[in-house]
């Protein structure tokens, strides 16, 4: 374990205001002003992550498992640095590439080729880099015949394929995956998993969020089990997943 640490969480806690009253709008704010003032004062905080510490080293593939609302997405957002921790600190090193939700960063009126450029740029490439990799992205996605079609004519699986193809050609150092692999057909899923394996061989760090213990055991070395915003267990992927399964099966 001499590889450098690339993701480090140190006693990280993250609170959200339970009701962000302002986004309800003026009408309800004015009509219920007294209650709102009270709410604001009490400002009930919801604790999404509570004192979480872990380290991930370069080249590891780590699975994050847990039930809905256990803090998995919050952890991912903290790594991607779109959220700031309320307490503690998060340190990351290297180019982080999150695999976006289906269709995020795409425009449905533009065609496939234009969307590759748009999405690639949003994910941090320059135009020159996208152009260099364009042919490989298209080839990987197997969507050559649809490049001139607007994205709104694509099927869900095709959009997922395009998104994944762009993301894997970004030369990420840290890849964040949030259960997306399940959308493509079998053949494409197989291709993605192969690509992930080759990433592992290249020393890319993979952080994989899922509530499927099977996925995590097959593709991760290590697993972190989150429960109610706290780490319940951490260690070898198989052992953790066995424990997790036991716990949720009753």
């Amino acid at each position, binding site marked *: 374990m001499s590889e450098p640490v690339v993701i480090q969480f140190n006693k990280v806690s993250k609170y959200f205001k339970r009701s962000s009253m302002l986004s309800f709008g003026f009408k309800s704010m004015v009509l219920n002003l007294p209650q709102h003032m009270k709410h604001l004062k009490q400002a009930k905080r919801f604790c999404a992550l509570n004192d979480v510490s872990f380290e991930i080293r370069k080249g590891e593939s780590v699975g994050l498992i847990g039930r809905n609302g256990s803090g998995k997405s919050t952890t991912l957002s903290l790594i991607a640095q*779109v959220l700031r921790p309320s307490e503690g600190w998060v340190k990351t090193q290297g180019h982080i590439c999150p695999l976006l939700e289906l269709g995020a960063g795409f425009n449905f009126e533009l065609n496939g080729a*234009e969307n590759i450029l748009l999405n690639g740029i949003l*994910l941090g490439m320059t135009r020159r880099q996208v152009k260099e990799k364009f042919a490989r992205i298209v080839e990987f996605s197997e969507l050559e015949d649809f490049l001139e079609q607007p994205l709104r004519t694509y099927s869900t699986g095709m959009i997922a394929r395009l998104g994944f193809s762009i993301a894997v050609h970004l030369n990420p150092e840290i890849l964040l995956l949030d259960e997306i692999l399940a959308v493509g057909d079998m053949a494409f899923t197989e291709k993605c998993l192969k690509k992930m394996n080759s990433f592992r061989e290249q020393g890319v760090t993979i952080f994989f969020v899922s509530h499927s213990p099977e996925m995590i055991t097959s593709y991760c070395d290590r697993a972190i089990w989150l429960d109610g915003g706290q780490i319940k267990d951490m260690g070898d992927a198989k052992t953790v997943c066995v424990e997790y399964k036991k716990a949720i099966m009753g």
Partner: protein
Amino acid sequence: MEYYRDLIVVLFQKEFTVRYKNTFLGYIWSVLNPLLFAMVYWFAFKVILKIQIPHYTLFLVSGIFFWQAFANSLCSSSMAFIANAGLIKKLWFPRECLVLAGVLNDLMHFVLSIPIILLMMFYYHIAPSLSWIWALPLLLVIQLFITYGFALIIATCNLFLRDFERLISIFVTLWMWLTPILYNEDMVPAKFQWIKFVNPMTGIVINLRHLFMGMPLVGSLLLTSILWSIAIFGLGYWTYRSFTWKFAENV
């Protein structure tokens, strides 16, 4: 730097293509709206109220095209961040570019509508003066910074206070009537001349119109609008910067 430029260019291209892609009459649509408004205002003010302003049609058009671009930028900026929630929640990138791309787009439309103003100038036998070479780019830059500043404030506030977008569309309409676009600034009674100084849009509107009507620019107003553009852009950018790390929680 290269990345920044590319991001703006690509987002700009996106907006631009999307706007024109499926409409055969794309360009016509974008100028038709302000032209129709100009016609109605002309009917109400010139025909019915008999306003005493020479070349009133040109007068109207030279203000309305500009205001349309400004109003569009402000209204569409309220959705700039919300419409991209999926990105903002997952990805850290210079989000201000989303707003800037929209503002640049409306500015581009304004530039594209200048030929129509030129056509009207031709009709009234007014030739563009030499000062266009420096004054037009300068005024466009001032307009860019004022609009961008306001747009950043609106886009940011709308994340935390969702009713903002409705307020803005009302407010922009009211604002137009308080800016000398349909009437001349000299017609404003002395008692209300102060509005000119607290309205950041007065200076730029008057100078743009002077440019299009072949009149000399007003130096003091030019200076005021430069100061306004710096102040508003500064305020907008500061607002954006101080809240940007909370976007993902609120979007």
